[in-house]
């Protein structure tokens, strides 16, 4: 049971990492980061079946922080969109990536 959950969590995490590296749309990249965080949550919950309640407490912190991060991140994406009218990170010319 735990092994399956951990394998699934690792797969989602790799998927998220891959998405950030491959996709060039800022919002999709951000979604992939959220995918990574949720993979971590899954791992915490799987481990907490063995290790006790600490892991589940951690999950709440991760979710709260992810929500705060989303608020700031989406605001930044909007402010970028106002200047460039695109959220494609390849289009930025002022600063080299």
């Amino acid at each position, binding site marked *: 049971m735990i092994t399956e959950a*951990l394998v699934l969590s690792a797969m989602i*995490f790799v998927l*998220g*990492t891959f998405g*950030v590296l491959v996709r060039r749309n*800022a919002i999709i*990249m*951000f979604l992939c*980061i959220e995918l*990574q*965080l949720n*993979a*971590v949550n899954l*791992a*915490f919950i*799987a*481990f907490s079946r*063995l*290790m*006790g309640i*600490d*892991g589940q*407490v*951690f999950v709440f*912190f*991760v979710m709260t*922080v992810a929500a*705060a*991060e989303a608020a*700031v*991140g989406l*605001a*930044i*994406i909007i*402010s*970028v969109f*106002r*200047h*460039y009218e695109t959220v494609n*990170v390849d289009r*930025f010319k*002022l*600063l*080299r*990536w």
Partner: protein
Amino acid sequence: MVIDFSRQLHYVWALLPEIILCVSGMIILVVGVTGRYREAHLAVEGELEPGRSDDLGWLALLSLSLAAVANAWLYGVTEVGVNSMIAVDQFRLFSNWIFLLAAVLGILISFAYVYRQRLQAGEFYALILFATSGMMFMAGARDLIVVFLGLEVMSIAVYALTAFNRRDRKSAEAGLKYFLLGAFSTGFLLYGIALVYGATGSTNVAVIGEIISSGEGSRNLLSAAIALLTIGFAFKVSAIPFHMWTPDVYEGAPAPVTAWMSAAVKAAGFVAFLRVLMVGFDSMYPLWYPILWWLAAITMVGANLIALVQTNIKRMLAYSSIAHAGYLLVAIAAANETASAGMLFYLLVYTLMNMGAFAIVMSVSHHSEKRLYIDNYVGFGWAQPLLGIFLTIFLLSLAGFPGTGGFMGKIYLLLGAAESDLWALSVILVLTTVLSYWYYLRVAWVMWMKNPEVEGQYDRITVPLPMRLALLMSVGLILYVGILPSGTLEFARASIEGLGNFGGGLLGQGP
């Protein structure tokens, strides 16, 4: 006073500096949107009298000094119950001094910038205070939950500050880059924490250390966890190859934010990394030190080579800050008391000299984002002798010239590396330092040895009173710790005592 962590109320006393900063940050936020401050950022350029947004800056400085008093008070406190989430030890308090100093300098140099660029002063100063409290949480964290929360409190505030100048597209773009890569690296850090939790069943760093040294816990999980944690922290301290955000973000962010974050965010990343590795993973030193060894070596060599060809001074200082991350990683790879004390000392000196250099860059660029090329400094020294001498002192200190704080810092890093027999790494440190003389001294050379093509281009440079205070503070302290380092070093050494077991010396040779 005795702090007993079995009583919930005592957490309030243990977290007093952080609480003061959070509360006063919220007060400044509220004051900033009321009445006479509200229109400050709508005023036409030049019309706004500086006094309005300055009040909020002084308020922020007042709350920082209150936090400093609370921090000094914590020296008289003894803690009971070792496995608390928050450490009240000298290591944390020394780190807090660095963060407070960086925040004070950062606010002092941003007064003129905030009103010239018509930034919302309330939000600006409040975010600096919030980020500072996050750094303090990181320094005091004895639990990986607190490390994570502190890191995020700091990072989210710094993302917002990076993108703060909404009229400037460079600033927005830098904010987006920093946000995406910062959040990406947080994912790795978190996965590392999850694996540590899975292997040991605890998120408390001290408990993790005990479990690992007793030989329990799956070594495979722990190795993967160390790798992921290292990736997460390496992003934050901008070590090569996790540095690609640094030059862009430092160039695009508002100048005072760059000055402050290049020093403070790095310091916070390093102190948290140091505590996690020395307390939690000290018995796995043979496993992790080759990773740190290579990270330090690549960072020092790569950053110094790229810095040689930079023409924009903000970008040059960004690569110089990556190079300094490399020097500091040597201290973590060495993992002994001398190196750790040297690291604290170096972080303090680095904060002073880097922010001082940025303060002068800001004056030359008229508190905006103009005239940021090294060619703009032709003849600057003779036109503004005092500022020229100050910038020369900062650059010499960054390069590590004898008589300045930067030199003593490098000496202590080398002593620490020698104690763990990291000879190859010490040689790389010395050689790359020699290399760095070229790009630091090139600025000094342009400043003093070349004749200006246009006369009088530096006549309009203004250095407001707060920035004068910041410059005098930085120069005075750099020369003080450069000439009489023993007092500060004793202080740093005392702060390291009792921190952890230090894995260094478990293994003799370099890889």
